């Protein structure tokens, strides 16, 4: 059931895909703002640069948390692409983020501390929806294993439209896009400087960046699952979903944490749950 090959492929390819996606993201964003924007390969230059820099720390334990964050993001992504249990993937994913949060706490600096608190708020905002997504997939495909869900011939999106929209919403949080990038921000403004990543420099920051790439590929993988019955459609959906995220990023101001939490929960509760309930009772229980 678990395929080591795809996992290995993910571990090797994801940084490239993730970096490229992030480069395209920056280019498209710049174009939307009427700018030329950086080269597509800019994220790779950035990370390369960061590895060339000195590592400044407040406490050396930071290195440990960052490394753990990266490792467990890779583990959860690899598990996902290996076709593992969706819930386990989510739990590993949460574990990874807890490491990032702890890294923020460790330095005892006001900005990273508050960033860590906000990162936690984000986690509690998106986690229910992600779990409901997994549950929805289970209800349609009859298994928590990604390999089974991907192999399912049923079009998940038809059964789970509400869950899909809910997932897109939390995707905005996860991709650290405005209006929900509370805990850290790519362009570093506003109240928290760089939030949870404030105290990470050079190689540590590069690791966080790479972890983001892995994470983004993993999240795109989840979107893919919704359309897994048709590969071309799935690819199109990926592109559209990502462009939509960029568009949202560019058309909203940042909201406050209260709104983030409430809206994420309400959407998870309304769209996700109602979708699942309808599915559950109309289909007379589980589908297969």
């Amino acid at each position, binding site marked *: 059931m678990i395929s080591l090959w795809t996992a290995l492929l993910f571990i090797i390819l994801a940084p490239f895909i993730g970096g490229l996606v992030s480069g395209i993201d920056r280019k498209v964003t710049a174009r939307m703002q009427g700018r030329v924007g950086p080269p597509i390969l800019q994220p790779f230059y950035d990370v390369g640069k960061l590895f060339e820099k000195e590592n400044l720390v407040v406490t050396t334990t930071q290195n440990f948390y960052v490394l753990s964050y990266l490792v467990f993001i890779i*583990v959860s992504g690899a598990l996902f692409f290996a076709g593992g249990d969706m819930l386990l993937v989510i739990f590993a994913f949460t574990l990874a983020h807890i490491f990032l949060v*702890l890294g923020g706490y460790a330095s*005892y600096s006001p900005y990273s501390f508050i960033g860590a608190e906000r990162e936690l708020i984000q986690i509690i905002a998106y986690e229910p929806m992600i779990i409901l997504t997994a549950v929805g997939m289970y209800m349609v495909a009859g298994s928590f294993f990604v390999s089974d869900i991907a192999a399912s011939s049923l079009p998940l999106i038809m059964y789970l439209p509400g869950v899909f929209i809910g997932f897109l919403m939390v995707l905005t949080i996860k991709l650290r896009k405005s209006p929900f990038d509370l805990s850290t921000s790519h362009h570093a403004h506003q109240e928290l400087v760089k939030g949870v990543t404030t105290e990470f420099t050079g190689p*540590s920051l590069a690791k966080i960046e790479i972890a983001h790439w892995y994470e983004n590929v993993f999240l795109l993988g989840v979107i893919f699952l919704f359309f897994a019955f048709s590969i071309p459609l799935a690819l199109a959906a990926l592109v559209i979903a990502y462009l939509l995220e960029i568009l949202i990023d560019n058309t909203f101001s940042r909201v406050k944490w209260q709104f983030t939490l409430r809206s994420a929960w309400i959407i998870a509760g309304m769209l996700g749950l109602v979708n699942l309930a309808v599915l559950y009772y109309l289909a007379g229980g*589980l589908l297969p």
Partner: protein
Amino acid sequence: MIELAFLIIFPTIVAFLLLFISRGAFRDSVVKIAALVIGAGSVYLLIRYYNQGLVLFSAPFEPATEIMFGIELIIAVLLLYLGIRYRKYLAVVLVLFQTALLLLVELVLLSDAHPETNLFIDQFSLIMAMIIGIIGTLICVYSLGYMETYHTRHPEVKDRRRLYFFMVFVFLAAMFGLVFSNNLLWVFFFWEITTLCSFILIGYAETHEATNNAFLALEMNLLGGIAFAGALIYVLSVDPTGGLLEIENLLASGHAIALIPAVLLGFAGITKAALMPFSSWLVGAMVAPTPVSALLHSSTMVKAGVYIIVRFAPVLTGTPEGLIIGLIGGFTFLLASAIAISQSNAKKVLAYSTIANLGLIVACAGVGTYKLVWAAILLIIFHAIAKSLLFLCVGTVEHRIGSRNIEDMSGLIIRMPKLAVMMIVGIAGMFLAPFGMLISKWAAIEAFIEAQFGLIFVAILAFGGSLTVFFWSKWMGKILSFDPNAVGEEKSVKVEKWLVLYILTGLTVLICLIFPLISSTLIEPFVLAVYGQTARLSQDNLIIMAMMLFLLMIMPFSMLISGNNGKKVSAYMGGRPTSPDLKFAGSMGITRDVTLTNYYFNDMFGEKRLLMTGTALCFGLILLAGVILAGMIL
């Protein structure tokens, strides 16, 4: 059977012995030896019975019951005296009412009853016995050192350690009795004993607050006791021969007969497990010395409540009453987790987390499918170990730093590194993959999907689970933050405290590794015996979890390997010059300290508001169950 009797009687003897020992050193050795004996006894029990399934014993019914009856009357008199002395008339009324019911049972209904098998043991009892025998005794050993420090720290509290250890050992005996009894009447007796122990130990400090909270606990538990007595009366009135007093017979008698007593017992369980609307007694019970909280109010006594519900889960499953009990558990889980966010007192956080987890177990047991019962038993095990570890850690920290506030634990990793690591293990054990509690939650999610109305519970788990992530993580973060003002102060913690903490930490990790073994030897056979089918996690997942655990354990070494850990600089302070102890030149020329505290969100997750919601909601559900029940009886 001799082993069972030994485990009940031996602690009682030790208890009476301790009542007369006032010399510290002697008491220390007695407690340690007794703990060792009880621990060894329970391990022996495990080895002896683990593969035997359900074994029934016919203990002498009449003489034992008469002794119990006598003791119960003595207790009733004692409680009446205390109630009048402290002017707690509600308690007095409840005691009178309960005694009246008891008299009715003993003198009228019981005349023809002759239950045959009064003791039993099966895998579930074994698990409970292991928890009592190992964790319970560890906590006893721990409390030796703790109580000594407690009395030096609180000179205003009268030294009643003789009473303390007496009650603790009586409690151990009662818990063993409770899980070994097949006879509901006996269960009820031990149930009442634990209530008494809890009442006296909460009131240990004899302060106004302690007394009040003790009576609150007593009153709520008496409510449960009354429901329990109601169940006894019902059972005896259905079957005057007393055959149905035997749990196994009652379970076998099917929904028609067993449902009403099961629901009444469920109510008793809810009060004992401090689910909403009765959660306030457990929060109040945190005034007791910390080992008491660890022993009674998290790892064992409150588990008696869920024990009885899990026992009756086969009866409850698929019924509206069962669903209601499950919902009470579910809402308690959700709301107590939310309330825990707004708490900064470590013991209160632990208390609310305990309530939440008990709620989750009850939710599993109330819905009661075989998979859920499997998950519920797993939860009981993991929770008992991790929570007792956490309580004891908090107790130790409190005695070292003089505060049980989480904010004061800032930088604990520098101040008390060993203890901090243990606490981290305990906390991780409560919510993180691949540790125990999370495995059970995961199993519960998977199981709920297939259950009737499971979607509600899945949602509760999804939302409640994320809330638990919040309050545990921020606590963890606080401990792990490198507060530059922190200095090491770990010395002078007693050896036996360390020993207990080491063992519990070891157990927390170990149990994650060997739980498949526990599951296959104990839980699965039990579930199989009750339901005819059983659940387990898939092999692949187990391997992955083990790998994750392994990865987690080797990660810290990465710090040692990579030589270049980076140059140290001060934290970013908006460019303000900072001194190493995190003072910065503030406005008005004042040098200020950076202080960092966690978020508590009192507006959103305030205790008062959510508690009221939960109480109203769960009270409504109980009323609903009551109405249904009344309808059934009539």
